[in-house]
């Protein structure tokens, strides 16, 4: 393949993958929802879960996006410095979103700020969002795709606590968000928490936390303990599906952390809705690919 052919090939594959992730949820999300559904006994949560599972079946059968809010596309790229398409990546991801928007179809979700008009192409200044992690001595490229819908974007919040507030302050910050905004953000939620120094370091980590599989744990023992404490605590609130009441509230709590300044604890919370449309694909230098989030996909 010439370089131009490779760019086209990767654009086409990413457009297909993005479209696909709007129609079928990742395996870990389906498994967790199946488990939570089986534990509800009251009529209302059962009716809601039945609707959710019927919807996911219909979306695949009719080949349509399962939720109408296909979000602003966000990509988390872990790209090796030796990956042959590194220079083309950001432009080709934008092109892939435009292509997916008309082929899938996706909703037009890019409104230019200040000029306040919808671009009608689902891309705009700085959208799709692309975050870069550069990986030295590698010729591979890993891409997380995420459809950030409006409903589950609204609860997002970051602040900087004084160290005196401690992890008790982190707990209160996360828990308060669940009953003020979380219940409207389509529970059962996946809750991402970032603990770092400043608002932006914590905020990025909180989104990165949402890319981790459900049921995975932070490698730090105390952070993993706090994930479990928060998960059990939010479940005990009993938000249920759609925040209308039930035995459980969340699919999980994932915490990501870095070291912090001694004078500050940056904390952020980001949530994913039950329709957590995350994808993960790994390309080698010849564009052979592996998809880790969904079984049985051919691009």
């Amino acid at each position, binding site marked *: 393949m010439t370089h131009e052919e490779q760019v086209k090939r990767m654009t086409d594959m990413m457009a297909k993958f993005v479209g696909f992730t709007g129609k079928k949820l990742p395996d870990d999300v389906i498994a967790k929802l199946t488990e939570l559904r089986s534990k509800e006994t009251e009529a*209302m949560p059962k*009716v*809601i879960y039945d*609707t*959710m599972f*019927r*919807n996911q079946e*219909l*979306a695949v059968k*009719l080949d*349509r*996006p*399962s*939720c*109408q*809010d*296909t979000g602003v596309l966000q990509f988390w790229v872990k790209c090796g410095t030796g990956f042959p398409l590194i220079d083309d990546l950001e432009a080709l991801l934008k092109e892939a979103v435009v292509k997916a928007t008309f082929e899938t*179809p*996706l*909703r*037009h*979700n890019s409104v230019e700020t200040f000029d306040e*008009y*919808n671009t*009608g192409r689902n891309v705009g200044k700085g959208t799709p969002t692309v975050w870069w992690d550069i990986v030295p001595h590698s010729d591979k490229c890993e891409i997380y795709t995420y459809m950030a819908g*409006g*409903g589950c974007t*609204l609860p997002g919040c970051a602040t900087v606590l004084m160290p005196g507030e*401690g*992890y*008790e302050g*982190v*707990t*209160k910050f996360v*828990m*308060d968000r*669940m*009953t003020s905004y979380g*219940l*409207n*953000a*389509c529970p059962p939620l996946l809750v991402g928490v970032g603990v770092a120094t400043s608002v932006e370091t914590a905020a990025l980590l909180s989104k990165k936390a949402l890319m981790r599989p459900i049921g995975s744990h932070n490698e730090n023992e*105390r952070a993993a*303990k*706090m994930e479990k*404490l*928060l998960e059990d*605590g*939010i479940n*005990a*609130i*009993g*938000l249920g*599906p*759609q*925040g*209308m009441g039930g035995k459980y509230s969340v699919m999980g709590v994932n915490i990501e952390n870095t070291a912090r300044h001694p004078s500050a604890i940056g904390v952020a919370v980001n949530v994913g*809705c*039950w*329709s957590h449309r995350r994808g993960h694909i790994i390309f080698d230098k010849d564009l052979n690919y592996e998809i880790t989030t969904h079984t049985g996909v051919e691009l």
Partner: protein
Amino acid sequence: MVKYENGKKILVTPISAEDLADIKIGDILYLSGSLTTCRDVAHRRVVEEGREIPVDVRNNAILHAGPIIRPLENDKFEMVSVGPTTSMRMEKFEYEFVKTTGVRVIVGKGGMKENTAAACKDFGCIHVVIPAGNAVVAAVAVEEIERAEWRDLGMPETLWNCRVKEFGPLIVSIDSQGRNYFEEKKIEYNKRKDEQIEKICKEVKFIK
């Protein structure tokens, strides 16, 4: 009017205040007839700009939603995916909106507050939620898109006037007595939240 079919309670447009009188929060309903998508900017135009809404929603239903539409030939459209958006964003406009337009059923996502509850009580209206994220279940209940108005607002914000059949399930979140399901639930949730915060805080004293 109200009809019962296949074990379902179905509201059929046009709907009167009397049709809603014995409906209570937590009831599960379905809707057949006229349903128009209507969200942020459309509310602002009606309430702040004082513009007349180009689709008559009196005694009918609106849906807080921004759908995915596929254009067909001859100015026709197909509903691909449609589901509710966060209703709370329309809260500041909803009292005046209901008063001005005479809408009877507001379909959305999540709770609304005292402005909407007052409108429901004063003008005989209800707010219901359709389980969100279920855009295909909702789209297949749309028989036809009859009109598209205020198209200058783009795909999500256009008023898509739909004819729907047994659109639902719809769970009543504010009834015409002004009772508010989510606000009542929130009292329980906050109580349990405070208990849990106290419990967790004992376990996370990592700074010593």
